C-alpha cells in the first residue's frame, strides 16, 4: 500500500544484529509510508524492533547491526545508497531529525545548552552569522515555549519536561520537514507528557512537519498520530488510520494490545494481558511471529509470513484471517 508521493517510504526493510555466535533478526520486511504533513504512530512492545527502524532510517545503527534488505526512500532519494558524507552534510538534521527518550546525558553535561545548540546550527548551516544563529535559536526556544535563560543553563539544571522541549528545539533548529519522536515522552510523568504531546501537535502544524511517532504506549499514539502501524517481534502486523485502528482493529495482536490498556472509567474488569512471551529472535518462528501466542493461529500461519492484505482504504493487515478479501496485496 503506497500513498501517492509519500515523503518517506520504507520498503521491505530488514535489520540483523550480530550477537556472539548468532544473529538477531530484529526487523523483518517492514514497509511503511508517510504522507507529507501527516503523523504515523509506530507502536509495539519492547523488543518489537520499532526503535531499530528509526535507527535504520537515520543510519544510527550500532556497529554490530546491518540492514540486510530494503530501501529507504526519502523525497525521491534512497537514503541507503548515499555516502556517509552526503548523508551527514545534506540530509541529517536539515531534512531528517529525531528526538530521543529523555536521558540525563542527551546533551553534554559540562557544556551549556546554548553553546551546544549553537554548535549544531553552526555545523549544519555554516552560512549564518553568529547573530543570525542567535536569532534562530531564540526563535525556536519561543516556539517550544522555553525561557531564554535555558541557553545559559547546564543540562542537569533543567527539569525533565524542559529537557525534552530543549531536545525538540534542537531537532527543529534547521526546520526539517521530517521528525522522528522515539519514545520522546516515555520517561516523563503523565502531566508533563500530556503537555509535551499538546506542544507537538501545535508545532506539527506550525512547522508543517511530517512525523513518525514511536511508542509502546497506545495512549500516546492516540494523542498525536493520524495513522497507526503495529509491530511485533520485528514484523509489521497492521497499518490503519487512527480512528479505524481504535474502533475496528483487525489484527489479533492489535486487539489484544488495545484490550490490555487499563481503563480509568467505566466498568472495572480484570487486567487482560497477552499470554505467552516474545519469541527468541535468534531463531524466530518461520511464519507469522505472533502465531505462537495467537488465539486464532492456524498451521499455515507458521509456514510462511502472511502477506499484507488490504481490507479498507489505507488499512492493511498481515494476517491470514483476512485472506477472504478479494483485493490482494498490490
Amino acid at each position: 500500500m503506497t500513498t501517492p508521493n509519500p515523503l518517506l517510504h520504507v520498503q521491505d526493510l530488514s535489520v540483523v544484529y550480530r550477537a556472539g555466535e548468532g544473529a538477531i533478526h530484529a526487523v523483518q520486511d517492514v514497509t511503511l509510508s508517510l504522507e507529507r504533513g501527516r503523523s504515523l504512530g509506530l507502536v509495539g512492545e519492547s523488543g518489537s524492533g520499532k526503535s531499530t527502524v528509526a535507527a535504520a532510517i537515520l543510519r544510527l545503527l550500532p556497529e554490530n547491526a546491518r540492514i540486510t534488505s530494503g530501501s529507504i526512500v526519502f523525497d525521491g532519494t534512497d537514503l541507503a545508497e548515499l555516502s556517509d558524507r552526503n548523508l551527514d552534510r545534506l540530509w541529517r538534521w536539515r531534512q531528517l531529525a529525531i528526538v530521543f527518550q529523555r536521558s540525563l546525558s542527551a546533551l553534554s553535561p559540562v557544556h551549556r545548552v546554548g553553546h551546544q545548540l549553537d554548535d549544531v546550527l553552526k555545523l549544519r548551516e555554516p552560512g549564518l552569522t553568529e547573530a543570525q544563529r542567535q536569532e534562530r535559536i531564540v526563535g525556536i526556544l519561543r516556539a517550544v515555549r522555553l525561557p531564554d535563560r535555558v541557553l545559559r543553563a547546564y543540562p542537569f539544571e533543567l527539569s525533565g519536561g524542559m529537557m525534552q522541549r530543549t531536545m525538540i528545539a534542537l531537532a527543529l533548529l534547521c526546520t526539517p520537514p521530517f521528525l522522528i519522536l522515539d519514545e520522546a515522552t516515555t520517561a516523563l510523568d503523565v502531566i508533563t507528557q500530556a503537555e509535551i504531546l499538546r506542544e507537538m501537535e501545535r508545532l506539527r502544524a506550525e512547522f508543517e512537519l511530517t512525523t513518525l511517532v514511536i511508542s509502546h504506549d497506545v495512549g500516546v499514539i492516540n494523542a498525536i498520530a493520524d495513522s497507526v502501524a503495529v509491530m511485533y517481534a520485528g514484523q509489521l502486523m497492521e497499518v490503519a488510520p487512527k480512528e479505524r485502528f481504535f474502533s475496528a482493529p483487525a489484527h489479533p495482536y492489535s486487539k489484544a494490545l488495545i484490550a490490555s490498556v487499563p481503563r480509568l472509567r467505566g466498568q472495572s474488569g480484570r487486567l487482560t494481558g497477552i499470554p505467552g512471551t516474545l519469541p527468541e529472535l535468534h531463531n524466530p518462528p518461520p511464519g507469522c511471529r505472533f502465531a505462537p501466542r495467537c488465539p486464532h493461529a492456524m498451521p499455515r500461519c507458521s509456514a510462511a509470513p502472511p502477506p499484507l492484505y488490504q481490507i479498507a482504504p489505507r488499512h492493511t493487515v498481515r494476517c491470514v484471517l483476512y485472506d477472504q478479501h478479494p483485493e490482494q496485496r498490490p
Partner: protein
Amino acid sequence: MGRYLGRQLLTIIPTLFLSIVINFALLHLAPGDPARIYAGQDIATEAQIEATRRALGLDDPLPVQFLRYLKELAQGNLGISFAYRRPVLDLILDRMPATLLLTGTSAVIAFVGGALLGAAAGRRTMSRLDLSLSFLSYTFFAIPAFWLGLLLILIFASKLGWFPTSGMRDVRAGYTGWRAWLDVAHHMVLPTLTLVLVQMPIFYRITRASVVQQQREDYVTTFRATGMPHGRIFRRYAMRNALLPTVTVFGLSLGFVVTGAALVEIVFAWPGIGRLTLDAVFRRDYPLLLGIYLLLAVTVSLAILLTDIVYAALDPRIRLR
C-alpha cells in the same frame, strides 16, 4: 562553590592536624635521647646533657612540649637536624628545586602522554594499538621504579654511554650559562624517563576507561544524529567529559611532587629531597625525617584542595549543586 570548598576544608584541616599529632607522637616514641644527641653523644658529660635537656625544654610535660611544637611550626620552625645541625627547613629548601625540577617535569609529561595515548586507545578499543598499549601499561605499572632506574643506567649510561650514570651536573666541567642548563638536562633524561614510564600507566588507564565510557553516552548519539563528525564530537565534548577523572588523579599526584621520587633520586644520586630522606632514615635523624613528612602532608593537602577547585571549575555539576 564556596560551600563546596568549605566542606573540603573541613576534612583537610583535621587531617593536617592529625598528621601533626602523629608526627609529634613519633618524635617522642622514637628511640634515642634527643638531649644526648644534641649535646654530643660521645663527648658530653651527664651534666651537660641535663643542661641541654633543660635548655631545649625536653623535660617539660608532653602537652607543654606539644603546644610549643605547634607554635614553632606556625613560625616555620621544623626543628634542628641531628645530623646536619642545621634547621630542617633550610635543609629542605636547599634541596627542593632539584626535586621539583625532576618530579614536576615527569608528572606533566606522564599526564599529557598518558592522557593522549589513553584517549587514542579508548577511541579505538580492541585495535592493535589499544591492545599493545594496554599490555605495556600493565607491565610498566608493575615495575618498581628504582629497579627500572637501575636498568636504564645499566643499558643507556653504562653500556651505551649515551647519558651520565648519576648526579645532576658534571661537577668537574664547571659549565655556566646555557651550557649549564644543557648539562642538567642531559643528566635529567634518564631519571625523568624512569618516572615518566612508571607514572604514565595510571593516566593512560584512567583516560582510556573514561573515554570508552563517554563514547557510550547519549549525547554522542545525539550529535551523530545531527551529522557531527566523530572527531568533532570527541574534541569538543567527549574529551572534556573524559578528562575529569584524569585531572583529579593528576592533581593528587602533584601533592607528591615535592617529596616524591625519593627512591629514584637515590638511584640516580639526584641531589634532592629524596636523598635527604634516605640520609635521615639511616642516621635516625628524626627531626629531619619528620620535617620532611610534615612537608609532604601539607603539600598533599594543598594539592587536594587545588584539585577540588579545578575540578569544580571544570564540572558544573559539582559547583552548582
